[in-house]
């Protein structure tokens, strides 16, 4: 019987700390009746802040806190006292000062910044703490004599800003953003501005007297100002062109370098021989505009990381059981045969055999499956799961890097340099551009040389100058940069602008099932057993709302808020929870915990059961099933019209019939795929010449995501871990995938249209150049007009496409 407990309109008070609804009798502070707390954890944080006069936290933003969920575990941060860990985490270390940068994904508002920068009031040993909000980083300096790293991290955990300290942070270099482009832009702007002022006398006829007197001086000064622009700002174009040449590959930067060189040498020649002022204004302007193009394209999402592997997820240290007792060791030193202890909420670092304890392992980061899997003594537990419940004793079977999951990263797909990127249009066009330019230049020399050798040289350099595809090089950055921002507003975050171009040319879409096609937040709950009265259902709700177990939280969300007060709450990890609600003892948990026999029909893999007993009598069980995302049939039908679809899942083929209906007859469905199988499948598709987009969410898709032309990682919350990929999509925007792909194709047409526009400018310029009519003034007019109009045209077209697609 489906149970429908209609959710009441919330009339409850919000917790002062976190803003969650309070229970009917909120926890209050003595003497301050206006403050309400939903749990003792939140109250404890408030008291801690109040004692240090830090209540400004609550004034900046209403209810800024995070609900205190994790249970404190003794010894949890003991590994931070290890010398080897400290030496790798600390960026600076002396007897009087130590400094390190921590990643804190929980920070989300102005209050967070304020509190985290006032840490010194909570711990006198901390001398300074600075937040970088965009990167969600906190840089802490402390005095090692007065406090320790462990104390600092424990304090952060106590106020619920627990830093992420994982294997990846060990030995990682502090994040140094590239300042090079800013330096180059500054120098180019300086050169451009001043050279243009000096070139003014040439533009106007009434300044001829001035020119006669100072022309030479201005020429030399322009040369002096343009020199740093050539050496500093234009350097990256030459470097990129040279790199391409060394790989026997002509990219767009090659004709650019050619044009820039022609421009500069002609100008130097003109100044030296006093034939004219040269084209230094055009030269510096070109470099400046093209650097702006680079800067627009460089837009990045600081807080997101697109290069994470399992080390960003695995812990730094693990509790090793030795004859001498417990000992904290680095995960990297773990060897087969050793015994380790894994406590509640800790991650299993290596493939191991369960030796003691009831395993209940949450593999949501690995497979996307939100319901924890039960493991008994003697079973093999794969690395990557998170234990929920009592502490386990495990015997390591394989070293960390050789595990079932982690050996995925030994695959050649993860050698970043080896991976060929799809050629962008601009580079493709660039090659024809070079051929055409050189033909034209040689042609004009052949034409002019018999008549006028001077003119031949001039036409030759003019063609090289005007054929410099500067406007062309601006089309892609501006179109893609605008598209990047449009998609960012719709919760698709791309690693870089080139991803859009690749996305627009894809022809095959590969999906993972669990966590990608299924929605873990929306799994429906069905009750079977004795009919539960509304009051009984509310009693169960009162009990489950106190537990942090994922199944309890799912049930609590299903049952809605409750008025009952819970007493004598107890949680037996891995088994269930019990309590007394309004005089009735309630137990919720596994069949054995309730004291009932599991029904003859075993639940299928997609189904998890939670049993309920009231007054000591088994009352029935809740089935929690996985559910497909909203609008999935419509989305897949739309995508299926254009793309070849495929599904890869680690599950068995129990759901083959509904999936076949969803995907249609032409799609390939593969079941029981290991992480390596997924990677191999994507590779096989690519060898058939297909351009593959992989959509997945867990660590087990990491290989396929990396191998695919575009890997899109789906995530419920952005701050959560997502494996290495080219794009991160928020789960809420999954239904827009078809529109996003169509928009990507629109962007491709935008780029092509802007190419045409820039070719027009090149055509006009070339017609002038071959006649030898390209004067410095003509170039100084044509160059900024073409660059600016291309920038505006590309941006507007992309905006229009976004508007039409309602993005």
């Amino acid at each position, binding site marked *: 019987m489906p149970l429908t407990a209609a959710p009441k309109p919330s009339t409850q008070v919000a917790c002062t700390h976190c803003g969650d609804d309070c229970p009917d009798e909120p926890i209050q502070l003595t003497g301050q009746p206006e403050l309400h707390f939903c749990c003792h954890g939140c109250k404890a944080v408030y008291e801690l802040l109040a004692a240090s006069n830090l209540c*400004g936290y609550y004034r900046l933003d209403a209810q800024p806190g995070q609900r205190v969920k994790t249970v404190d575990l003794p010894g949890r941060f003991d590994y931070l006292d290890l010398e080897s860990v400290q030496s790798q985490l600390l960026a600076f270390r002396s007897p009087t000062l130590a400094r390190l940068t921590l990643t804190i994904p929980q920070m989300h508002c102005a209050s967070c*910044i304020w509190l985290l920068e006032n840490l010194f009031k909570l711990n006198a040993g901390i001398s300074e703490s600075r937040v*970088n909000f*965009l990167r969600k980083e906190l840089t802490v300096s402390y005095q090692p004599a007065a406090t320790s790293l462990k104390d600092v991290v424990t304090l952060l955990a106590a106020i619920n800003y627990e830093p992420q300290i994982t294997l990846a942070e060990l030995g990682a270099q502090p994040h140094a953003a590239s300042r090079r482009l*800013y*330096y180059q832009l*500054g*120098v180019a702007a300086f050169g451009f501005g001043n050279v243009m002022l000096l070139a003014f006398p040439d533009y106007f006829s009434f300044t001829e007297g001035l020119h006669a007197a100072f022309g030479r001086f201005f020429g030399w000064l322009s040369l002096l100002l343009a020199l740093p622009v050539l050496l500093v700002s234009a350097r990256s174009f030459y470097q990129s062109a040279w790199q391409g040449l060394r790989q026997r590959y002509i990219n767009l930067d090659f004709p650019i370098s050619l044009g820039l060189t022609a421009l500069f040498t002609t100008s130097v020649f003109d100044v030296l021989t006093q034939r004219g002022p040269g084209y230094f204004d055009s030269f510096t302007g070109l470099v400046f505009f093209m650097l702006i193009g680079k800067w627009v394209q460089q837009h990045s999402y600081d807080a997101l990381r697109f290069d994470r592997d399992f080390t960003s997820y695995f812990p730094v240290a693990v509790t090793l059981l030795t004859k001498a007792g417990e000992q904290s060791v680095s995960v990297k030193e773990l060897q087969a045969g050793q015994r380790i202890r894994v406590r509640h909420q800790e991650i299993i670092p290596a493939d191991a055999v369960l030796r003691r304890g009831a395993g209940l392992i949450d593999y949501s980061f690995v497979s996307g499956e939100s319901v924890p899997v039960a493991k008994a003594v003697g079973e093999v537990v794969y690395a990557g799961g998170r234990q929920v419940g009592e502490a386990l004793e495990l015997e390591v079977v394989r070293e960390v890097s050789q595990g079932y999951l982690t050996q995925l990263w030994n695959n050649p797909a993860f050698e970043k340099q080896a991976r060929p990127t799809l050629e962008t249009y601009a580079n493709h066009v660039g090659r024809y551009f070079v051929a055409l330019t050189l033909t034209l230049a040689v042609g004009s020399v052949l034409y002019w040389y018999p008549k006028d050798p001077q003119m031949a040289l001039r036409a030759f350099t003019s063609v090289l100058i005007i054929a410099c595809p500067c406007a062309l090089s601006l089309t892609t950055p501006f179109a893609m940069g605008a598209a990047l921002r449009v998609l960012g507003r719709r919760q698709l975050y791309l690693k870089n602008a080139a991803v859009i171009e690749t996305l627009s040319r894809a022809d095959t879409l590969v999906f993972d099932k669990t966590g990608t096609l299924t929605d873990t937040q929306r799994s429906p709950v069905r009750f079977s057993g004795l009919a539960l009265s509304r009051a009984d259902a509310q009693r169960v709700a009162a009990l489950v709302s106190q537990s942090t177990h994922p199944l309890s939280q799912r049930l609590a969300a299903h049952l809605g808020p409750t008025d009952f007060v819970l007493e004598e709450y107890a949680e037996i990890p891995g088994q269930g929870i019990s309590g007394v609600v309004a005089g009735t003892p309630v137990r919720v948990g596994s069949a054995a915990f309730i004291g009932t026999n599991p029904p003859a029909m075993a639940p299928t893999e997609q189904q998890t059961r939670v049993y309920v007993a009231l007054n000591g009598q088994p009352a029935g069980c809740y089935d929690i099933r996985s559910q497909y995302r909203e609008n999935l049939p419509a989305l897949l039908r739309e995508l299926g019209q254009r793309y070849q679809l495929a599904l890869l899942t680690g599950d068995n083929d129990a759901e083959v019939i509904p999936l076949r209906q969803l995907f249609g007859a032409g799609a390939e469905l593969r079941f029981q795929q290991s992480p390596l199988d997924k990677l191999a499948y994507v590779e096989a598709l690519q060898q058939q010449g297909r351009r593959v987009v992989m959509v997945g969410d867990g660590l087990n898709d990491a290989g396929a995501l990396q191998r695919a032309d575009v890997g899109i990682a789906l995530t419920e919350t952005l701050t959560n871990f997502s494996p290495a990929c080219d794009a991160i999509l928020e789960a809420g925007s999954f239904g827009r995938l078809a529109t996003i792909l169509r928009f990507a194709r629109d962007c491709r047409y935008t780029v092509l249209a802007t190419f045409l526009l820039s070719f027009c400018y090149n055509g006009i310029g070339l017609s002038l150049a071959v006649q030898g009519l390209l004067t410095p003034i003509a170039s100084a007019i044509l160059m900024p007009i073409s660059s600016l109009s291309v920038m505006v045209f590309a941006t507007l077209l992309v905006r229009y496409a976004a508007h039409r697609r309602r993005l």
Partner: protein
Amino acid sequence: MTIIFLLIGISLLVALLFLGAFLWAVRSGQYEDTYTPAVRMLFEDEPEKLE
């Protein structure tokens, strides 16, 4: 008209000064976090607790 040499010299000096200021700003990391400082300057000092 020789005064133009001097004027251009001065204008270049001013421009160089601004270039130097920009390079210093980049060097000191002002372009790395463009959000937090804007929030930080709005924080008020906490009034001392009366004992």
